[in-house]
């Protein structure tokens, strides 16, 4: 099984300090130039040497004579950088795919890297409801750009909680949920992680194997230690349910468990509802704390409620959990960084105290969240017509992806490509874990100009009816060339 993420060091996470780096940084204290030294030598002749504290003395600055100093324009002083010892961090593997794609001059190329939706024409999509909401905002001259509160736009927070937990959720009605606006899914995960590292007693988080490449980095930097639980079964290209139950079953009591609410990234493999129920029972019996990452609500099946089922099951049993929401995909607001972190607590009093502590995490990070994206989301969610229109546009996006899955599956079958490709239509959401190995992937990039992450993950959103044949050809060639 290929690891979805290699060691953190390979990602440049640890700060490498190489020998060559240190030699250049050691020149900091002896960086005066020739003219600097001449001026100082001159100064010594003019003035009595006044005692200088030993700590300040070094070989070249014997007498800080204020009346003779290098002219600012003499360019006598060139500091060496205190960061000269840095090495260049490796490219983020996912974003790096798009960088490579952009560099490719070939007229026929396909970007199946980043999980951003594309239309049939291969273009990014700004939803109609988003355009309408944005126009509304611009036209409203009474709107101002003042700081949001630290927890963000109140209206937006309430609407977001309802969206994921359900409008009739008892947790909401009992005021047991605190929701804070954060910067998309990433920001919500980071704030949640930092909060847990400060206030929770079990500082280990279990993440599925594989998972989104940024997960381990976010949680590690937040101060948690990261372990994994088995998830994907390369043999079936489906869920390793036994392995999952075993690993969660042997986790220490109270450990945090990261769960993808739906449309698992990168595999597209989700537990069934029955399996979710078993997971829930196991976790509650071991007092494991669920932390949901909900990045694709509505995008997976086309139904917002269906995609929220796993989260609602857990909240429905009265227990506590964390939920990170993102509107990047389901509202196409990628660049606006709109998300929310909800923490479901035992009581309203606890929820209120938790909220006050969340503010202490946020304030020294970026003070308060950005206003624009959240305003758009709130405008859409609270308006019946816009909301309905949104659900229709959302279903259209989900349907197009489901259609691409079917077309790719049919195309591979038509070519008689060796292997069982049914996982393409069984997996759900934006990504397909093809099962291709890195050699095959490299071949496809080289020969067919198809860009994807080396773990064999493809973004179905990057496909169109027009380009499916090209991809099918490439897969066929890769599989038959490298068995």
């Amino acid at each position, binding site marked *: 099984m290929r690891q979805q993420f290699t060691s953190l060091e390979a990602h440049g*996470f640890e700060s490498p300090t190489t020998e060559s780096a240190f030699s250049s940084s050691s020149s900091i204290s002896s960086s005066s130039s020739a003219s600097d030294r001449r001026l100082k030598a001159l100064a010594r002749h003019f003035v009595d040497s006044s005692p200088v*504290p030993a700590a*300040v003395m*070094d070989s070249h600055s014997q007498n*800080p004579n204020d009346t003779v100093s290098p002219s*600012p324009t003499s360019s006598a002083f060139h*500091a060496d*950088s*205190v*960061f000269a010892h*840095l*090495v260049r*961090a*490796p*490219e*983020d593997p996912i974003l790096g795919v798009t960088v490579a794609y952009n560099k490719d001059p070939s007229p026929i190329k396909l970007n199946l890297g980043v999980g951003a939706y594309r239309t049939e024409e291969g273009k*990014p999509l*700004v939803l109609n409801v988003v*355009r309408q909401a*944005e*126009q509304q905002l*611009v036209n409203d001259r009474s709107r*101002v*750009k*003042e*700081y*949001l509160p*630290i927890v963000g736009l109140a209206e937006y927070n309430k609407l977001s909680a309802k969206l994921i937990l359900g409008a009739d959720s008892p947790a909401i009605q009992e005021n047991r949920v605190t929701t804070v606006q954060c*910067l998309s899914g*990433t920001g919500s995960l980071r704030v949640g992680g930092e909060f847990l590292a*400060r*206030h929770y*007693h079990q500082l280990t988080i279990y993440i599925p194997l594989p998972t989104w490449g940024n997960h381990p980095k*976010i949680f590690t*930097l937040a*101060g948690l230690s990261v372990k994994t639980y088995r998830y994907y079964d390369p043999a079936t290209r489906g869920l390793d349910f036994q392995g999952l139950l075993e690993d969660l079953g042997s986790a220490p*009591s109270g450990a945090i468990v990261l769960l993808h609410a739906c449309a698992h990234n990168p595999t597209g493999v989700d537990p069934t509802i029955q399996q979710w129920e078993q997971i829930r*029972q196991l976790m509650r*019996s071991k*007092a494991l*704390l669920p932390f949901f990452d909900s990045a694709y609500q509505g995008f997976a099946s086309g139904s917002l409620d269906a995609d929220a089922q796993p989260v609602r099951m857990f909240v429905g*049993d009265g*227990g*506590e959990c964390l939920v990170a929401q993102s509107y990047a995909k389901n509202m196409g607001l*990628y660049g*606006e*960084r709109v998300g929310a972190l909800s*923490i479901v607590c*035992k009581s309203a009093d606890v929820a*209120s*105290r*938790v909220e*006050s502590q969340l503010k202490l995490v946020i*304030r*020294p*990070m970026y*003070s*308060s969240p*950005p206003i624009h*994206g959240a305003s758009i989301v709130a405008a859409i969610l609270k308006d019946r017509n816009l909301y309905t229109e949104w659900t229709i546009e959302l279903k259209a996006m989900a349907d197009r992806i489901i259609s691409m899955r079917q077309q790719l599956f049919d195309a591979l079958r038509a070519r008689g490509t060796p292997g069982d490709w049914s996982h393409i239509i069984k997996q759900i959401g934006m990504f397909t874990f093809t099962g291709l190995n890195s050699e095959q992937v490299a071949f496809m990039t080289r020969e067919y100009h198809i860009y994807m992450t080396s773990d064999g993950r493809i973004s179905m959103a990057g496909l169109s009816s027009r380009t499916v044949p090209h991809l099918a050809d490439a897969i066929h060639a890769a599989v038959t060339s490298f068995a």
Partner: protein
Amino acid sequence: MKPKPRINIIMWGFMGSRLTSSTRCMSTSTKALSRFGWWDRVSPAAKDPITGVTEAFLADTNPHKINLGVGAYRDDEGKPVVLQCVRNAEAKIAGCDFMESNATAVGSKLVEESAKLAYGKDANVVKEGAFAGLQALSGTGACRLFAEFQRRFHPESPIYFPDPTWSNHPNIWRDAQVPVRTFQYYHPVSKGLNFAALMDDIKNAPDASFFLLHPCAHNPTGVDPTVEQWREISYQFKEKSHFPFFDVAYQGFASGDLDMDAQAIRIFLEDGHLIGCAQSFAKNMGLYGHRVGCLSVLCADAKQAVAVKSQLQQIARAMYSNPPIHGLLLVSTILSDPETKALWVKEVKVMANRIQQMRSTLRESLEKLASPLNWEHITNQVGMFCFSGLTADQVDRLVREFHIYLTRDGRMSMAGVTTSNVSYLANAIHEVTRYNREASNVC
């Protein structure tokens, strides 16, 4: 992995193990879960001293109330302002087809324009690209990125803040696990700069220490070094090989002139320092809620800049990935279109002038009331804030009796003062200070 404070770990461990043994036979009914709440021990956090003021202000129903808390500009009617240049930019970009591949381009444009603004458009460092620049979540976000970066590559080094400084600075560096120190800055008796003490502290700090400097309109005191003093500070920094980090939150607000307000930075640049710089567009473009800023770190050459930038991007990626595109688009649209930029420059001057006006008027009013105290500092201090010298008790009285809201260190946001409330304010200040002889000596 950085060590995090572990509160009550022993207590929790004990409770955890008790739970394990007793839950083995438990059903999954909610009754079983109700005994144990993970967050029961979470204590309520103290309110943020600055945003807490606004919260209290909003809750007050008194018609005479004044908010002198947060540093957000208000017009003479006491209303928040959306600059015309911002509205123009917004009309341009509203509903436009934004391609994700442009995100990098927009970010780069913003960084380029921000660097020109801080360093001067003809600065060598800009022309040669010898700096690592990254768009950031306003000033706070830029500071936090740098603090995390400093910690990663100089893990032993503390940061030195002026005493006093913006209340969030220590939180930012502390959350990045960087030890915090201070250097003397404000002189409570003169209500000006304690230059001799400042220079001493710079000299006595260990070589190659990291210092945070406010290049203009110091927050909270409004006290800035003179140009000559900046030159001396820069020279001493050279002697000590200190790292200068500038928090540029008010460029344009001090004098009304963007270049003049950047003088301290330019002096350091001329002197060859490789500085770091956090820029915010919250105040000078009125984009508070959009969270737009820029972090730049000067490097020896463009190659090193690539390495530094890649490391900064990694830090940002694990925190929030990128700042929101809307704000970045607004700023880069304004700065790169000559007409819109010219309009912006005018609007900044208008804001700065109004504040200077309010300073004069407030001081005159207090003098006319025959206040026993010296109020020169109101017009000597610069930028959005006046460090009034009021004691915490006096501030409490202003809040309680007069519904005037400010932070308990006596910092008043002059942006909250208007021609219609300045007399009320002067009278209130006079009331709480007229009988208190000590007020003239206390900070």
